[in-house]
């Protein structure tokens, strides 16, 4: 069961035994195929078709451009850092902000110099 040596056959298997062995091998595989086709009836006949292979050739996430890529990388880096307080995060970009959503206007540098 662990391994077979094709070069030597210990005992000649009868035709019946051979068919039984084959059934054991093809049985589960064909059963699995039927299961898959039942779940995904629109699945194409040939899994190794050129569409499938071409998708395989182009693995990896596609970005719009290098800017999109760098933004995504930065976001990933920020996610790894401890997250800041969520209440003052930017609201722009996701939905139209209301005046209450916007953060308080920071005092200008000139004003603080004068104040200091």
């Amino acid at each position, binding site marked *: *069961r*662990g*391994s*077979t*040596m*094709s*070069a030597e056959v210990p005992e000649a298997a009868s035709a019946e035994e051979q068919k039984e062995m*084959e059934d054991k*091998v*093809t049985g*589960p*595989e*064909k*059963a*699995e*195929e039927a*299961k*898959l*086709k039942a*779940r995904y009836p629109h*699945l194409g*006949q*040939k*899994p*190794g078709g*050129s569409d499938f*292979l*071409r998708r*395989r*050739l*182009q*693995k*990896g*996430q*596609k*970005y*719009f*451009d*290098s800017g*999109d*890529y*760098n933004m995504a*990388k930065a976001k990933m880096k920020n996610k790894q850092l401890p997250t800041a307080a969520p209440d003052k995060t930017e609201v722009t970009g996701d939905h139209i902000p209301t005046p209450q959503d916007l953060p308080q206007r920071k005092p200008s540098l000139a004003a603080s110099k004068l104040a200091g």
Partner: protein
Amino acid sequence: DDVSFQNHNLINCFCILLTADIISTVEFNYSGDLLATGDKGGRVVIFQREQENKSRPHSRGEYNVYSTFQSHEPEFDYLKSLEIEEKINKIRWLPQQNAAHFLLSTNDKTIKLWKISERDKRAEGYNLKDEDGRLRDPFRITALRVPILKPMDLMVEASPRRIFANAHTYHINSISVNSDHETYLSADDLRINLWHLEITDRSFNIVDIKPVNMEELTEVITAAEFHPHQCNVLVYSSSKGTVRLCDMRSSALCDRHSKFFEEPEDPSSRSFFSEIISSISDVKFSHSGRYMMTRDYLSVKVWDLNMESRPVETHQVHEYLRSKLCSLYENDCIFDKFECCWGGSDSAIMTGSYNNFFRMFDRNTRRDVTLEASRENSKPRASLKPRKVCTGGKRKKDEISVDSLDFNKKILHTAWHPAENVIAVAATNNLYIFQDKVN
């Protein structure tokens, strides 16, 4: 029921490296004294074997970290708007020619030659600068002295010596150093290139299976390797379960194979999964150069290079998965690429499976064993207990049922010391090293 493997008991040997990233390749060097791992984050970690030390007898054969460096960084392909992963796909060592060690490491697009050298001396007594590096005032220098070399703490430095870039449109899956020690090949999904180790701005294409019309694409190259002794011979495997052997002496472009290895298939047993599970994920020549081994999804096959019609041996790795192919297709596990490796004497072979299991086959006794690489199940210096998967019927104690297998714990990468029974097994982000019990 203790299964002895070749009359040896494999024991767990201490070294478990926990990396931040998933280990993506493992490779011993030619002597077995160094073991390199590459990971998904583009880093390379090299381990060195401790020499025999009478004061610490238990440390014989221990592998400790020797050098760590960042080999590849993520890049962005501007033409295709795709990210180029920094994951190290393969590491291959060069034979050692001087005190330094050299290895090739590759990601999807770029191959780099790294030099790893030791520095244990430092020059002191420079004329033009102080010990802390500050430049001395030249007018203050009244005498000349000869700098002397003083010993310092061992420092291991890795420096990139060559960068072989821009030669692959598709993703590199293999690199292989030629027995001439001057050239090497790199293979992607559709092409194989030949390089000279000294020349980075030119590469020679030796195999090209790209069809003129991509709609006619039927198979891709999955692995390639040079013959260990015959510098003109290489093999490459395909996603259709075939292996082609090419002879570089016959023509410049080896699109026409010299030998074609394919096992005949019974057409009546063909199913939707047949081609996918026949895809060869790894091909390796035996040390002798007489045989080669291929790994497909469910089995490992040993081929005699003189017989193309069928393999001489077929070893089932996890045949019980045949009745799980539907779910394995849905969760993409059916596309997992397992590697395989030969023992030093070619009498045993090894490959990984799921649930952190790995399988070893003794070709002479025809016995096989399933072992597990996990912290919970192995204590340092204790023998590894053989594992058994229950395929049906009543589950015995200590057996694990197929449905309980963890398919996220895959052992894709394993390596075998070139001469001794020492193996390295990568289980996600853990590295295990096992070796024979010394009686």
